[in-house]
């Protein structure tokens, strides 16, 4: 990471990956069009369980990065990058980030733990939803709770907020303080003393919640005192997936605006023939393609198990956050009054862009992390 001009192998998605992206796009076009997004964002759960089942069973989206042992296909993070980009385009309302991006990522890191065998197959077949309490910042939130022994088990007490899809998660993973240090625990939905409230969020297409644990029975997962490294790794993966989602959202907005600029006539000309519009669109394309490059290469680092992953995840999350916000903002401007209506999808992307930029740490935080990782002066959690 010290020489940014050092040669790296050229990378582009292969035909199979591109084809998979098209399949996902078509599926979402059928099952999660704009009207459906509008409908779901007004419901309590915020997603359609039947669509989720179909995504799991027909497209195998839930098992892409889960080993075959647990029912997945073991394709890996790059294929998930493809999926997240498509979900970002469509603003699809589904527990993808929480269940697949976070919970499955975490359990997959612990193949020997009984929790992996117990929950991963259910996640893969779409019957189990999960989430991880990572906290809202770029540094993982451990411990989120205090753990105390109770007979042969553990009871957790504490609170975690901005937990993605907390309101529907069947299993919740979080770090809690023990004598051995912060340790991972898993609590099941409905456990005693476990409360999950959905927050009123800026982005109605992604649900965040607050978890409250009061002497809630929970099972330790992974090695005692090992929470920090696992959570940091999941934070990096989730940041990469978010970056891909952001790139997809930005690409959709750009395409929408370009289409509009080709057909919208003012002063007797298509507005896209005015340099002010034309150049702004060119700048947006540069942002979109750059965001894609960043997300894809961070995904590649994840797929390769590269030591650069933390740095590239920070880089991608920072860049893609800014790019999506800027593209959404520019799109609204170019759409004029239309872009300011509730009716047009622009504002949903604007909300998503602002929210995703803050989720898991804002761009400033990630840039600071990136430089610390460059310095080598950063005590990473792993």
């Amino acid at each position: 990471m010290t020489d940014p001009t050092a040669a790296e192998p050229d990378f582009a998605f292969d035909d199979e990956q591109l084809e998979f992206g098209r399949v996902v796009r078509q599926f979402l076009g059928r099952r999660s069009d704009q009207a459906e997004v509008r409908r779901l964002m007004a419901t309590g759960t915020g997603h359609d369980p039947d669509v989720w089942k179909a995504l799991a069973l027909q497209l195998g989206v839930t098992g892409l990065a889960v080993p075959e042992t647990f029912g997945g296909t073991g394709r890996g993070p790059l294929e998930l990058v493809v999926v997240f980009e498509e979900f970002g385009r469509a603003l699809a309302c589904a527990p993808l980030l929480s269940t697949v991006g976070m919970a499955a990522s975490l359990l997959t890191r612990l193949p020997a733990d009984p929790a992996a065998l117990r929950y991963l197959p259910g996640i893969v077949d779409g019957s189990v939803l999960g989430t991880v309490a990572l906290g809202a910042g770029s540094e993982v939130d451990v411990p989120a709770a205090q753990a105390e022994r109770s007979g042969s088990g553990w009871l957790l007490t504490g609170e975690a907020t901005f937990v993605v899809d907390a309101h529907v998660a069947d299993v919740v993973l979080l770090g809690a303080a023990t004598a051995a240090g912060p340790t991972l625990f898993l609590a099941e939905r409905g456990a005693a003393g476990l409360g999950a409230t959905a927050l009123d969020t800026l982005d109605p297409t992604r649900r965040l919640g607050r978890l409250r644990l009061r002497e809630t029975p929970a099972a330790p997962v992974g090695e005692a005192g090992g929470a920090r490294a696992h959570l940091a790794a999941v934070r990096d993966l989730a940041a990469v997936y978010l970056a891909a989602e952001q790139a997809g959202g930005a690409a959709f907005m750009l395409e929408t605006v370009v289409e509009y600029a080709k057909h919208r006539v003012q002063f007797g000309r298509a507005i896209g023939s005015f340099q002010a519009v034309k150049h702004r669109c060119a700048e947006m394309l540069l942002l979109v393609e750059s965001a894609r490059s960043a997300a894809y290469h961070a995904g590649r680092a994840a797929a390769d198990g590269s030591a650069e992953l933390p740095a590239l995840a920070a880089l991608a999350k920072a860049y893609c956050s800014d790019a999506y916000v800027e593209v959404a903002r520019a799109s609204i401007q170019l759409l004029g009054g239309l872009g300011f209506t509730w009716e047009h999808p622009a504002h949903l992307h604007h909300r998503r862009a602002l929210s995703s930029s803050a989720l898991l740490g804002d761009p400033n935080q990630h840039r600071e992390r990136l430089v610390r990782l460059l310095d080598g002066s950063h005590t990473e959690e792993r």
Partner: protein
Amino acid sequence: MSVAEDLDRWLADHWDPELGLREWRAVLVDSGWARPAWPGEWWGMGLPPADAAEAQRVLAEAEVVGPPSTVAVNLVAPTILQHGSDLLRSTFLRPALVGDHAWTQLFSEPGAGSDLAGVTTRAERRAELPGDTWIVNGHKVWNSGAQDADHGLLLARTDWDVPKHRGLTCLVVDMRAAGVHVRPLPQMNGYATFSEVVLTDVRVPAEHVLGEVGGGWAVVNAMLANERSLGAGAGTVPVPGNVAGRCRREAAEEAARAARHFSWYPQRYGRADLVAAARSADPLVRQQIARVVTLARIAAWSAGRARANLRLGRVAGAEGSLAKLMTSELARAAAVAHAQLAGPDVLLGDTLTAEILLSVPAVSIAGGTDEIQKNIVAERVLGLPKDPTSDAHVPFRDVRRNGPAEPSGAELSGAELSGAEPSGAGS
């Protein structure tokens, strides 16, 4: 005897805070003190501007309730006074000042936003119909207060065979007439301040043409100029908040009713005041606070410099457009600062921060986009040449334009998004 003494004496005789609002306004308006600069025959006193300003000051100091601060009073009434026939003046001026009539502008269309002179709402004269009537068909958007309006000031195309600016006519539309359909148009921030208005075979009597047939562009420009001059500080007697008296109370209630759709207006400017009062230990956030404070101060100074130069009789450039660009930049910078100050709480939906972030995009669109302002600044102040292509000199019939087949609401643009706002709602 000075104007102030005159007015003081008149107030001593007539002003009673315990009068009903409508009753008091009728007294005030009929006396001429509501608009002392207007001509004596039209509810004014024909006073010179300096005397009228002095009267204004006296009324303000005594916290005397004046006409409401509405589209009707601030925008429509001066335009009718300037361009209207005596019939229109006698019909509409007094009810506007007293607060009996509410008005809305019917200017922008889905296909005509930045290019307002490209409106395609069609008005056809049918002299054969009873009373010499115009038939109006078209689709207007960004109409603020249209749901509650009694009358609308409509910009329509009446001649398709002349260049675009010359085929337009202003008409006064009865918003309760058959064929007028008003639909709220919710915005990204969840408010529904504006409406769209569909007009289907709406009849307008010929005597409700405002200004000349074919002279609508001049009328609209006069109205927009009134709107801009309001921004420079003119206006009506402020409505006091916590003072005693039935009249003031009713006026405050009336203002609150009018403002309920506009409570987000201050937020679209970014609320630099809150940023300036905020504190942060994060050096990056501190930089952003400094930027916001800097832009806010400079915006105020530049506006003051423009006013001072105007008072010194120095030729004005396009200060309004420059100020608008600065307002946009300030609002954007302030939104960034709010997001940074909120930290993870920016994820929440029911906060003032959220309302700011979702309202700021309006400021660089409404009332003429930033792009239009830059054209104005470059051409009028810097003297750079206009774009060589222009549709301004060919018959409108031959101008390429957005098709009528476009779906409702899918082709809007925001030249008129600003509309008029109750005083105090903007900043």
